[in-house]
């Protein structure tokens, strides 16, 4: 008979569901199953059964507060939760667990005695995904765990796909700035915010000077390097809540919320100077180039998005006509 001291670390794991098999992707990751039961034999039994699954890591807690602490630092994929515990019941545990936004979609299987129908209903209402009745059928516990982990793997894959699609739909892949549609959506939201809170808002259009010459001299790869560097330095020089978008070709738009025109011009000039000082390495020799910028402040009484962008565009045209490498407001 093993003594308590000799029993392996409770947090030891390393088994479970093969995520790659479910999703068709070679993720090599394991699913984390947290077992919360104040009764050590029950917790260890559940652990031994769950470990029949491949690629599952099990973490056992006999104290619910410690389990909640762990869940604050790590993201479980499934919780097997005993309903009646002296420290706190399953419903209280779930209320606290689901307070964290990231846990809202994490499945929870509640384990309860067969004479606790009312509390079981409460647990299901509180967000439990499924339940098992004690004494639990080992085969049923393994099967339900496996099925829910399959759903969890699909759910995670779907969330990742949505995230990827969102990036593809909103980002210009060459420059990693907002694409035209996303920029205009964000501009619209910023204009509403500016109107509502009576905050200033500046919009600028920036264009690489003589970009055709760059392409002709350094090739399209050189031209792409210029666009990437221009975007990177512009993003670096703006604040986090400012937005840079590629409007097409070598033309970029800048949206600067809570910015009056004087300040906007100052920032635009800093960007222009930084770009003019930049050298981009190229086989044919370092590339140096300049930008022209037209900048204007949003007037809530007169401007819609089209008018605002047209105003900035006209000012950009003036900057080009006045000799390029300048900011016109």
């Amino acid at each position, binding site marked *: *008979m093993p003594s308590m001291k000799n029993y392996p670390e409770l947090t030891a794991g390393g088994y479970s569901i093969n995520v790659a098999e479910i999703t068709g992707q070679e993720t090599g990751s394991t699913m984390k199953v947290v077992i919360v039961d104040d009764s*050590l034999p029950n917790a260890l039994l559940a652990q*031994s059964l769950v470990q029949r699954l491949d690629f599952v890591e099990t973490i056992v807690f006999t104290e619910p507060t410690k389990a909640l602490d762990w869940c604050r630092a790590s993201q479980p994929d499934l919780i097997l939760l005993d309903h009646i515990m002296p420290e706190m019941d399953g419903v209280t545990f779930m209320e606290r667990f689901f307070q964290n936004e990231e846990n809202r979609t994490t499945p929870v299987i509640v384990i309860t005695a067969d004479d606790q129908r009312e509390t079981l209903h409460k647990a299901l209402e509180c967000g439990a995904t499924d339940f098992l009745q004690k*004494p639990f059928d080992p085969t049923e516990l393994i099967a339900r765990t496996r099925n829910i982990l399959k759903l969890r793997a699909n759910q995670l894959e779907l969330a990742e796909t949505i995230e990827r699609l969102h990036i593809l739909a909103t980002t210009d892949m060459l420059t990693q700035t907002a694409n035209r549609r996303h920029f205009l959506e964000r501009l619209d939201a910023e204009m509403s915010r500016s109107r509502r809170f009576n905050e200033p808002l500046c919009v600028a259009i920036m264009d690489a000077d003589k970009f055709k010459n760059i392409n002709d001299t350094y090739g399209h790869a050189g031209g792409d390097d210029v666009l990437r560097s221009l975007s990177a330095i512009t993003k670096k020089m703006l604040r986090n809540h400012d937005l840079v978008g590629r409007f097409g070709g070598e033309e970029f738009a800048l949206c600067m919320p809570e910015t009056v025109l004087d300040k906007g011009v100052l920032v635009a000039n800093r960007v222009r100077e930084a770009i003019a000082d930049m050298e981009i390495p190229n086989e044919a020799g370092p590339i140096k180039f300049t930008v022209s910028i037209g900048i204007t402040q949003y007037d809530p009484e007169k401007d819609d998005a089209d008018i605002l962008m047209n105003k900035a565009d006209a000012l950009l045209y003036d900057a080009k006509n006045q000799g390029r490498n300048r900011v016109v407001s």
Partner: protein
Amino acid sequence: MPSTDYDSLPMFDEIVVDRLLLSLSRTELSDLMAFVPEEGRRVLIELTHAKKTGDLSPVQVAAHGLRGAAGNFGLARMEAIARAMNNKEATLEEMETLAPYLERCIDALDEELS
């Protein structure tokens, strides 16, 4: 004397044990089962405290845990005793009459698993 002679109940529920053995080896199962007597001893300790404090709720909580564990492992006799001690209506005197049955059951299980 309780109305049930717990000593005469079978130690194991063979159906539950057989089900467990579909997923666990005999060694794994007996290793895990060896943790259950400790839960039983916790109930007896809580009962000793309750004699001094008069508060039976810690005994019932411990008995609830034991009942669940014994049930899961197919320990039929221990589950029946724990169920009786988990009864909210049970008095201190009734629990005291159950204690010797629980002690003997723990010893028998220890013997079985050693």
